[in-house]
Structure formats: C-alpha cells, structure tokens
C-alpha cells in the first residue's frame, strides 16, 4: 500500500515536487545513525565471525589467521553435527506444524465466531505472553514438568503414579512442548492478521456451488491466507534454529539442538569452530528469508503491540 496517490488534491506543493540530488540526500540523512549502528553492532560482527570461521585455534586457544575450510568440513565429517542439525530441522518442522495445527483452528474460531470486541481481548491475551520474559516462560515450564514439578506432584497426589516421572521433561518431548508454548503466539498473530481480512461468506458460497467443506477450505481459504501461513512458519521455524535456552533448561542430556553446540564451542573457547557452525545457521536463516521475502509480513506480527 502506498501513501501517495495520484490526483490533484493529493499532490505535494511545488516546493517538494521536484526533489534534486541534495533533497534526496537530505532525506537519507536520518538513516545514517541507524545504518552506522547496524553496521558496527551487527553487520561487521557477522563479517568478523565469518572470517574467524575460516581460521583456526592453536593449542593455546588463540585464534590463528591460518585460512582453511576445516571448520566447515568438520560439520560434514563428524556425524554429531549433521545429526544435531537434522534433529533441529525435524524439531523445527514438528513445532511449526503443531503451531499451525493449533493456531489455525484457534484463529478460525476467533475471527468467525467471536464478536469483534471480544476478539481484541482474546488476541491481547495471546500477545501478552509473547511480550513477557522468554526466560521466565521457559523456567515456568521447568517448574511444571520437572521432577519435583507441579505435574508430578499432582499425578502422585491423585495416586496415578508412585514415582516422579521424567517422561515429559529432560528429553526431546519436553523441548517440543515448551517450544510450542513459546512460539504459538507468533503463529497465532501471523494467522490472525491474514484471517481477519478473509470474507467467510465465500466459504458458504463455495459450498452452495457444490464444494465439500474440505474443498472450500483447501481451494478458497488456504490460498487467501497463504502469506499468513508462510509468515507464521518463518516466525516459528527460524528462532528454533537459534534455540539453546529451552534445551538447556528442559532438554536434559539428549535434548541438545544445533545452537547448543555453538554455545558449547564458545564456552570452550573454540571460536573458529563455533563461528563456522554459527555461520551455517546464519546462512540457512538468510536463505529461508530470501526465498520467502515476498510472503513475509513482519509488521503483522511485531507492530500489533
């Protein structure tokens, strides 16, 4: 949507209608502090990380400018990295699918059957946990799922189990549950923005014309909320590639995701090795963003505050 429209009354006065080079540069000046900030605190650090990933660590844990690709080769040679990366992708896909499977019916119900005023309230209720501390939300689950957590106490209290169970915590299941919890609001917000614009009488029309409900859903609804679905997928999938806190707190020994390996490298001062793994993640994220850039509606998710 453009804010400028053609037409007499909307035209700028003469002074602004023929911007020269100076005026154009003048308009770009406010961008300078922001650009410098991003350059020095984000782009250059990323570039340096890339350079480091091509160097190596010597026996004193110092980084030596010895150009090589071994840090990347290790990613493909040692099965633990590929396996963890594959597991992270599977986890990301599973959480994304589960998030969509919950958020789609949730929003469908919200938009179609709930009054406008109540919709806002429910949506706010979904957004609120989204803006509250990520650490605290993960921690709260540890207090529920953990060995001495609420769930175990409850199950033992009603006599269903004798010993505390760790079936749901300190493993991949625990990570899965908590990740759905943490990223559901992203999916819900992205889908809400898309469904909000959808005219549900179209579904009735399709069915009047002989479509089965699933056909109406598949051929009428889904194509029109495609950008919302893609935005939701990206907002859930990408952060999981960088998740290390949830596996740390509720994942136990087997719950590690790829970002945990990166963090471990840095803990052990193996900077080039960790950098290479971090660059692999960053490259993957960037590729996903580039492929889906036309369908990504960041504003729908973040400016709803």
């Amino acid at each position, binding site marked *: *949507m453009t*804010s400028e*429209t053609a037409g007499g009354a909307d035209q*700028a006065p003469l*002074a602004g209608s023929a911007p020269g080079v100076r005026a*154009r540069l003048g*308009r770009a000046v*406010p*961008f300078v*502090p*922001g650009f410098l*900030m*991003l350059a020095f*605190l*984000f782009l250059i*650090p*990323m570039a*340096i*990380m890339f350079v*480091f990933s091509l160097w190596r660590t010597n026996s004193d844990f110092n980084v030596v400018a010895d150009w090589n690709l071994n840090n990347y080769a290790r990613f493909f040679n040692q099965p633990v990295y590929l396996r963890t990366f594959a597991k992270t992708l599977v986890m990301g896909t599973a959480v994304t699918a589960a998030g969509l499977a*919950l958020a789609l019916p*949730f929003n469908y*119900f919200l938009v179609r*059957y709930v009054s*406008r005023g109540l919709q806002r309230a*429910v949506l*706010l*209720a979904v957004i609120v*946990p989204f*803006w*509250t*501390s990520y*650490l*605290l*939300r993960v*921690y*709260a689950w540890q*207090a529920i799922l953990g060995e*001495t957590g*609420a769930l175990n106490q409850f199950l033992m*209290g009603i006599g269903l189990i004798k010993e505390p169970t760790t079936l749901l915590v300190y493993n991949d299941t625990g990570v899965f549950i908590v990740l759905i*919890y943490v990223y559901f609001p992203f999916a819900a917000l992205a889908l809400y923005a898309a469904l*909000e*614009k*959808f005219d549900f*009488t179209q579904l009735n029309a399709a069915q009047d014309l002989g479509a089965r*409900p699933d056909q109406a859903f598949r051929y009428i609804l889904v194509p029109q909320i495609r950008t919302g679905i893609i935005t939701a997928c990206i907002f859930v999938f*990408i952060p999981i590639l*960088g*998740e*290390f806190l949830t596996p740390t707190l509720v994942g136990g020994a087997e719950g590690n995701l790829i*970002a945990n390996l990166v*963090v471990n490298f840095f803990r052990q001062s193996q900077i080039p090795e960790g950098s290479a793994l*971090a660059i692999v*993640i*960053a490259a993957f994220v960037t590729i996903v*963003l580039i492929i889906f850039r036309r369908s990504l509606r960041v*504003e729908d998710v973040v*400016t709803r*505050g």
Partner: protein
Amino acid sequence: MARGISALETMPVSPYARLTRAILGVLAGAILIFLYLPIVFLILFSFEKSDSPGFPITGLTTHWYEAMLADSGIHTALLNSVEVALVTAFLATVIGTMAAFALVRGRTRFAGTGRLLFTLPIMIPGVLIGIGLLIFVRRALDLKLGLHTVVAGHLVFTTSFVVLIVAARLQGFDRRLEWAAADLGASSRQTLRYIVLPLIAPAIIAGALLSVTLSIDEFVITFFTIGPQLTLPLYIYTQIKFGVTPEVNALATVILVVTLSVFAIGSLVLSSGRRFRRREAG
C-alpha cells in the same frame, strides 16, 4: 466485509456446523489455558510457604517477597537492568524514529533495502547477534565486556522494533496535513515540531516502552555480551542453575506484573492515536 456477525455468516451450512463450532470453541479455550497455566503456577508458587514449591500447596505467605526485597544481589541486578533498559530505549527510540522517517519518506528502492536491513535483527536468532558481538568486542577490538556491551546488543534488535512501529504509523500518515501547514506559512521545522511529531507521538512512545520491556526481559544476547555484572534475567538464570528457589518465583511474578503493565500502557497509547490515521482513499 467480514465485520461483526451477521445472520448469514452464522447460518449453518452443514448439519455438523454447530458441532464444529463447539469443538473449535473448546480447543480455543484449552489453548488459552495452556498459554496461562505456567504463568498462573509461577504466581501461585511465589506465595507458597514450603521452600520446595509444588503441590499440594502447604500454605500462603509473602515471605519470599520480603526475602526478595532484602536481597542485595537482586538490588544490584535490578539497577543494572534498569540502567541498560533506559539507555537502550533512549538510543533505540531516537535512532529508530530517524531511520523510520528516512525509510518511509525516501525513494522506494532504498526503502526496500533499508527495511530488509532492519528486519534482519528481528529474524536472526539472538544467539548469533550475541556471539557476533562477543567476538567483535573481545577478539577484534580487545575491549572489556560490561553493561555498555549489553546496551550495544540490545540496541541491535530494539531499534528494529522502533523502526517498524514508527514506520507503520508514518505510512498511514496523511501528508496533506503537512502540505496544509506549509501552505499556511509554517517552516519545515515548525511543521515537524507542531504537526508531524504530535501525530506520530503515540508510535514513538509505544516504541520506547516496548524497547524498555524487551530490554529488561532480554536474556540470550545479554548472556553473551555481559561482563562481571548481572541483569535481572541473568540473576534468575544463575539461581535456576543452582536449583529452584521460591524467591525466584516472587521475583519472576514482580517482573511479569511490571512488564505487563508497561506493555498495557504502551498498547493503550498506540491505539489512542489510531483515529488520526489517513482515511482510505475513495
């Protein structure tokens, strides 16, 4: 349009429509419970008498809140957090608002690239931002880590949020108001001061408040960029690593309440100015 509920929209088209609706309703309710359950438990446990929180609740007490208030470690962490949040929010708001102007008012091709540039820090996982900055500061510049590097890390992503929020407001801004001011003899500085800024102020304030809450809650980037000090989330993390203490539950409850209040104020401010948005053409 799909505004409100009309008889036509709710008219069941299949015998299963009512059932579908009921099932969806139950699912939606269950999801809301799922979202709030951990928060409710956290708050409940903060009042629990026993020092190993869990069921059954043995009794209610405000002891942990008193313990928290007396804890000097928490005081220091709180002061650090507030200092970082205020500096971050100030810088992010100024830098982000300026950038938003350039993005919305500049050439379209430039705006597209600029927007992408500011979207990246929101989409790139915080681990990468934090580690990148850590390497840059420690290995490339050989500077010390401290609260200033935490501010630097927080600035990267909070600025992006300010840019997106202010840009969204500027996009819906009726430029004819500015031209009218210019026609009536206002200088461009006067137009900015008396017309533009007051109209986009809600977005700027909301951006600032959002930066404060994001900064206070931020854990991942802080984890990598902090020196010997602790911020509140880092303090909580070290406590959790030692084992669950009810004091942390009390602290968590207070943080939740404070961030929720700031958030609520922010969204009230942001929605208050919506009526000034440009009407749809036609």
